[in-house]
């Protein structure tokens, strides 16, 4: 499997170099620097030279590189690289050159633990933190608990949870976070609209709780309604295209009867991810009108309408409207929020800290263009949007219940929050930049 693992900075200096197998030399690091880091035109994340393959992922100002000499499982190698980045973030807050340099000893320790002979081992951050600790801050748990307990847990069937957790107050918080993705064509038709959702849970529950979690999942409810004949429920149900679960969820059980049951890890974790494409409620509609007047002026009129209930409010709404590369000056008026021209991004950035449901805002303005001697190729990027709407889900997904079963039979308090934010929310604009000739 993975024969060597390297971390480079942007200049191509090796920060971490760990060999797992003897089939290559440390100097193989130079080959990657020459072939990828110094090469301006790299068009693939995998490069094979001879029988040596380099897999690289970029994060912050780092190159994370795995080297193999076999027909490796490419998906696994990349997933592992990203896992390592996440472990780094969980340990150091940030995973960049500085963090790597300051913690290289710890990173070597981690690399020794998560890969053995090039095969990934336990990579659960919560478990790792129990026995791999920084010298300054010894984890209190590690001191208290003896290592045999840790190791049994780290390899067991519920490797994510200790057995002796106690809380005075048993609570569970559920956050439903949806990213809504939109691709709207120049004609204003929706090319793609889908929701990728995430259900985050913070569990502060004693003992070994068995949880059951219920959503307004259409497939599940349809089964129910056929028994009880509750037709009203069906209309509120959501069709989930696909979902993935945290390690702790019993996949077999979900496959057989679509119930989500699990023993949660302690603290915060991502319980599930899901994807829906049916009946997506788009929180915002954007109507852009862009007119080119002669060769020196472009007129903009962009109207944004909030499509959700007037009782709700969207926060941090940002609309980015691209401008031609030869824009000299811009004159903008807005009915709400603030807009300014950011030459470095070649766009008008329009920010609205609060945006009430069903309301509307308009930006109008003109861009003066300087005349160009050389016509530069510029494909017009789409208008993009950023926002957050609390207590709203684009998919219509609702949490129906969370049941907690534990031996000691304690009562627990559950909280649910919903939020929808922009994923990749893009509205294409007609290309006015191309000059048409007719014969």
């Amino acid at each position, binding site marked *: 499997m993975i024969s060597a693992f390297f971390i480079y900075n942007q200049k191509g200096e090796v920060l971490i170099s760990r060999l797992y197998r003897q089939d290559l030399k440390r100097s193989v690091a130079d080959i990657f620097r020459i072939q990828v880091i110094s090469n301006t035109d790299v068009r693939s994340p995998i490069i094979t030279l001879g029988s040596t393959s380099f897999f690289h992922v970029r994060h912050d100002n780092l190159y994370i590189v795995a080297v193999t000499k076999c027909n490796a499982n490419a998906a696994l190698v990349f997933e592992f690289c990203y896992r390592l980045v996440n472990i780094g973030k969980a340990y150091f807050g940030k995973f960049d050159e500085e963090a790597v340099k300051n913690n290289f000893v710890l990173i070597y320790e981690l690399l020794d633990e998560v890969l053995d002979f090039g*095969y990934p081992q336990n990579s659960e951050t919560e478990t790792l933190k129990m026995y791999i600790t920084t010298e300054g801050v010894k984890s209190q748990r590690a001191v208290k608990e003896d290592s045999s307990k840790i190791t049994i847990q780290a390899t067991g069937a519920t490797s994510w949870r200790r057995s002796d957790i106690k809380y005075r107050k048993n609570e569970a918080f559920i956050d439903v976070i949806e990213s809504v993705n939109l691709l709207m064509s120049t004609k204003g038709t929706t090319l793609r609209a889908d929701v990728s959702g995430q259900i985050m849970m913070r569990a502060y529950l004693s003992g070994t709780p068995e949880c059951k979690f219920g959503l307004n999942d259409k497939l599940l409810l349809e089964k129910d309604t056929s028994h009880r004949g509750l037709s009203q429920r069906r209309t509120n149900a959501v069709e989930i295209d696909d979902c993935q679960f945290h390690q702790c969820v019993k996949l077999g059980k979900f496959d057989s009867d679509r119930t989500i049951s699990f023993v949660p890890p302690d603290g915060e974790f991502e319980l599930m991810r899901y994807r829906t494409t049916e009946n997506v409620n788009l929180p915002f509609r954007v109507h852009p009108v862009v007119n080119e007047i002669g060769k020196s002026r472009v007129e903009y009129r962009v109207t944004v309408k909030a499509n959700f209930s007037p009782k709700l409010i969207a926060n941090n709404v940002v609309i980015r409207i691209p401008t031609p590369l030869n824009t000299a000056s811009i004159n903008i008026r807005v009915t709400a929020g603030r807009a300014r021209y950011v030459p470095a991004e070649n766009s008008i950035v329009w920010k609205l800290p609060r945006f009430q449901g069903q309301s509307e805002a308009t930006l109008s303005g003109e861009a003066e263009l300087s005349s160009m001697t050389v016509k530069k190729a510029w494909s017009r990027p789409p208008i993009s949007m950023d926002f957050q709407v609390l207590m709203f889900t684009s998919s219509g997904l609702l949490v129906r219940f969370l049941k907690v079963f534990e031996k000691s039979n304690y009562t627990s308090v559950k909280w649910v929050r919903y939020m929808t934010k922009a994923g990749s929310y893009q509205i294409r604009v007609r290309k006015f930049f191309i000059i048409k000739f007719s014969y």
Partner: protein
Amino acid sequence: MNDFRVTKPKFFATTKKGENYELRADLNSEYRDRRKDAIKKVIANMTVGKDVSGLFPEVLKNMQTEDLEQKKLVYLYLMNYAKTQPELVILAVNTFVKDTDDINPLIRALAIRTMGCIRVEKIIDYLCEPLRKCLKDDNPYVRKTAAICVAKLYDLNPELATENGFVAVLQDMVSDANPMVVANAVTALAEINEASTTKDIFVINTPTLTKLLVALNECTEWGRIAILTALADYRPSDSKEAEHIVERVIPQFQHVNGSVVLSAIKVVMIYMRIIKTDEMLRQLVRKMAPPLVTLLASAPEVQYVALRNINLILQKRSDILQNEIRVFFCKYNDPPYVKLEKLEIMIKLANDKNVDQLLSELKEYASEVDVDFVRKSVRAIGQCAIKIDEASERCINVLLDLINTKVNYVVQEAIIVIKDIFRKYPNNYEGIIPTLCQNLEVLDEPEAKASLIWIIGEYAERIENADELLVTFLDTFRDENSQVQLQLVTATVKLFLKKPQATQNIVWRLLQIATSECDNPDIRDRAYVYWRLLSTDPQAAKAVVLSDRPVISVQGNTLSGPLLEELINNISTLASVYHKPPETFLGRGRFGADAVQRRAIEEQEEASRESPIQAQVKTNIENLLDLDFNDNSATPTSNTPPSSSKSTNATANVDDLLDLFGGSNMNNDLSTPLQSSSSNNHQNNGLTNDLVSLF
């Protein structure tokens, strides 16, 4: 989380001379902190590639310590430099063996893990006893580490691992109660099996199968992949068993780790060959689609692997994502390698229902800035036209719109694909030829030029000024690329055959230049062949040059059956990314830097050759080149020393040849072999004989 960040001395700071000397002093220091900092400095130097092997004895002295962190650092050093100091490594053995008896399982595991990585013969003798003990350890963490250690030992000394019964212990460990031990035993066995000569180390039978299926639901994500990979190599006895296993594998589609999902898909794709129940197969196809689509929401690199695999899966099961074309639409900020893969898949999914949507999407891409992506998008439009008959007219319209943008490379690419569309639908769209011809001057790429010239030749009778268009090239003929020259020769001959009046002069001039002034034997010989043909029997020439073209289709990006099956066995691996069997990129033995460099160049060449779209273009060109021969064998010159050597003499006789134009009584055995696909030699012999008989 930030509380883990601690400020520490700068271990990567620049160094002075005599550094190792100072480090040596520090390593021998009486103060613990000083020694530890020195070890860290040594590791930092090792990382940046400095040779610190000289400090071996001093570092080794620091091995016996209560400080786990320090111990790990010394072990790290040992793994690196053990080979340079095989004699001294023996000194470490005692500590290792003692550590494998430690009460702390973490230390036991660390010792056995590290010992396995020290590849010195002398150490191995001391490894067996501790390893035997660790394989039977009460603690699963130690057992799972020992399991991998067996694979390390086998790699070093297969006989020793087998004779000591370690491999047998590993086989028993597949039935361990702990899921992670099972997973690591499977991993180790798979590796040993691969390396063994007999390939019978890891055989799954019914009891182990049950164990694996149980462990599958309990172990870590990486363990699941190991088990799924083992299942993929297992051959179920019948359809029923395959169905049973598949049912246990399908829940893994819901795993959050994309590589687990792909490994599960691999098992299902392989078992689908055995499953006979239609209902089950339908169900599997239906269940596979959503997780494949979900993979497109992963990190771009994982997406790339997924897309390459979807490409394979679609070639095997074309119905799988039939209604999902929209999820493959490119986002503005997708990396180029993802965009190009999405394009490939969109063409595969194109049908008469979604083609309108696809075309407007492709048109959108054609106005982006990335030249490579734009060109491939334009090419995709052409492929749609060839694939879907009903859509060809719409495709032509989109291409015309693109030509009107006057963006140079878009125009050139559009003309290249229009040539193919003309090939597929002859006599349907000649109306657009004037528009194309307006762009003749802006074309500067050989392929685009050659394409337009081919169109002119093909439709010479409908283009009033075809002769004028071609004449403009006569003066620059020598400077043209050989691809363009070949097309010019053929197009001019076509023009002459279609409009013999008033074009005789052009043909004569062109053939004269091509035969007398051209260094390229391909072109010279083709000119001679035509000349000969024209002079012998114009009717035969017509039959040959203007014969019907074989139909073309979207080929090139589909793989042959056996290769496809082999690649499906390799889903999710490098082979599936490259669409090549593993042995093509895995050499035997190690490569020096020079060899790597050399291979890199070869690889690059190969890549440009292998790139599917380019490959297709190439076949198209070959088709063009071979049009008149109706045969894929190489161009006549490839093995014709006789005719090439004669040709210099022959140039002197151009006038003689010209006299033959009107047709003579010479034997015309030339046209027959050309029309039928006979061997090159035959043609060449014929040609040479003819040439000889001329004098």
